[in-house]
């Protein structure tokens, strides 16, 4: 509030524009040794940059003060004023986690993670309720379509994997391919699709872009529409084109969840691969393998298709089968779907079609 500083306003010097962009990183230890030395040398004689640096330090300190770990005794801390945060709860125990795990496993029939067992605020309850209503409506519509086309759904002949959530009403498998979702991706199919340039997943120029991001998770409106609730009987086709970044980057279709997922990818160099990923760490089930079916180079459009039945995958590029693989871990993963790309490239997707594989 004080406006009574006698200190004259520092003036910007000619070289300030060179050093100013480096100031935010000076105290983060992220500058190269040479950069650090030259910035410090400049700072010694520049009040304007010293002023700038101080402002970064003030905000950093405030950030640390307010967002460092909460006190362990959260219940008592809740009455301490600025150090407390409304909604803070006691620390979780392993027992809480195991209970939440059991509850999620027993109530997840459509692979949508339910609200935690112990904590379920009203907001999350509303979201869960809306999601349930949407899922019921979707299943009803799908059932109606199936009945209209085939009279009644047949049942899967083979036993379901034991890790699959038990839901007898959700294991019906149509006797022939059924289109579950089809969209040109020229614009967002609905408001739940990710569409934000700042996160790298967005619609522009008549395509869905994945820019410098590992994957763009596709929303529940698509992820959970497959009748079994998991992508264990699915045929996914999408057109993809790399428009930026090195040709060694890979891109394609991801299946699994945000933690554990499988990727069927191609590179613009003409290779395809199948990866088993734990977050960002991927190991190759099928190492990058050249295929003449893949159109190469930036700007080349390829149509990818992955057919998955149980834990067996068949891979196609431009209508040609390029390979197949099995991943036993796949059955432990919840059924979500993503369009993915390496973090150094930009790819665009069009004409997504999801059908049953059988």
């Amino acid at each position, binding site marked *: 509030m004080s406006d009574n500083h006698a200190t004259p306003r520092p003036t910007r010097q000619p070289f300030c524009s060179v050093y100013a962009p480096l100031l935010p990183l000076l105290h*983060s230890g992220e500058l190269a040794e040479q950069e650090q030395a030259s910035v410090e040398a400049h700072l010694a004689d520049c009040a304007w940059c010293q002023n700038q640096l101080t402002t970064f330090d003030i905000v950093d300190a405030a950030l640390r003060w307010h967002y460092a770990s909460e006190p362990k005794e959260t219940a008592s801390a809740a009455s301490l004023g600025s150090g407390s945060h409304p909604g803070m709860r006691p620390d979780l125990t392993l027992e809480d986690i195991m209970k939440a795990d059991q509850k999620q496993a027993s109530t997840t029939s459509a692979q949508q993670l339910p609200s935690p067992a112990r904590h379920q605020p009203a907001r999350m309850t509303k979201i869960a309720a809306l999601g349930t209503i949407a899922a019921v409506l979707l299943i009803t519509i799908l059932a109606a379509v199936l009945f209209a086309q085939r009279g009644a759904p047949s049942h899967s002949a083979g036993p379901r994997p034991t890790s699959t959530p038990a839901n007898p009403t959700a294991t019906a498998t149509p006797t022939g391919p059924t289109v579950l979702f089809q969209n040109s991706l020229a614009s967002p199919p609905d408001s739940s699709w990710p569409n934000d340039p700042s*996160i790298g997943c967005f619609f522009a120029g008549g395509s869905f872009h994945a820019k410098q991001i590992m994957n763009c998770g596709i929303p529940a409106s698509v992820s959970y529409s497959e009748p079994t609730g998991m992508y264990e009987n699915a045929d996914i086709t999408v057109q993809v084109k790399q428009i930026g970044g090195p040709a060694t980057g890979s891109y394609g279709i991801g299946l699994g969840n945000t933690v554990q997922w499988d990727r069927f990818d191609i590179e613009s160099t003409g290779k395809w691969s199948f990866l088993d990923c734990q977050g960002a760490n991927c190991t190759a089930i099928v190492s990058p393998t050249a295929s003449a079916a893949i159109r190469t180079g930036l700007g080349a459009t390829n149509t990818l298709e992955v057919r998955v039945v149980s834990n067996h995958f068949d891979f196609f590029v431009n209508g040609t089968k390029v390979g197949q693989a099995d991943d036993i871990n796949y059955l432990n993963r919840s059924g979500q779907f993503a369009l993915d790309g390496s973090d150094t490239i930009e790819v665009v997707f069009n004409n997504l079609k999801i059908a049953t594989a059988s």
Partner: protein
Amino acid sequence: MREPSTASPAITAEFASILERTQRPLRSFVRGLVGSAEQASDIVQDVFVDAWRTAQISKAPFDGNGDELAIRRWLFHVAYRRAAAVWRHNHVLHFESLEVTPALQLDRFYEPVPFEDRIAEGELLRKALAELGPQDAVCLLLNVVQGFTAMEIASILDIGPVAAKKRLARAKHRLRDAYFEESRARGTEARL
């Protein structure tokens, strides 16, 4: 139905220790992203359920190798993903230019915030963070509060190290500008 836990006693004990050590920093990190302690607690619980499932099948990084840094990266990565999804659903994303924000024109020399202003400062900071995109906010919180390097942030966010460093610098500019603009707008020039 999920099968009973198959994790070994050693992994179970290690997991309990990880839970004890990391849940509070993780919760404060998520709170910085979603703005709500309530939602942060929900997200953190879900993150640890994911982690527990991974530990039960002894998969990296919960395979008993004691790689604490890898575990921290994994937890923050999953927390970020979940928090970003909540952020999107909350419709609080802001569409902003990717250009670095021009330097703020400062009229005065800033002084440290008095302790009694902490509550107002916390609210200012919360609003300023909400104005950043999730990837900017996450870079800041990971670096400034949690002490991750740009290289580690790159690994957590699945981006390149150069991109992580750029985002960090940009985020610091944006947060500072938003913070002091908000401060001015409120007339709380005690900070100036």
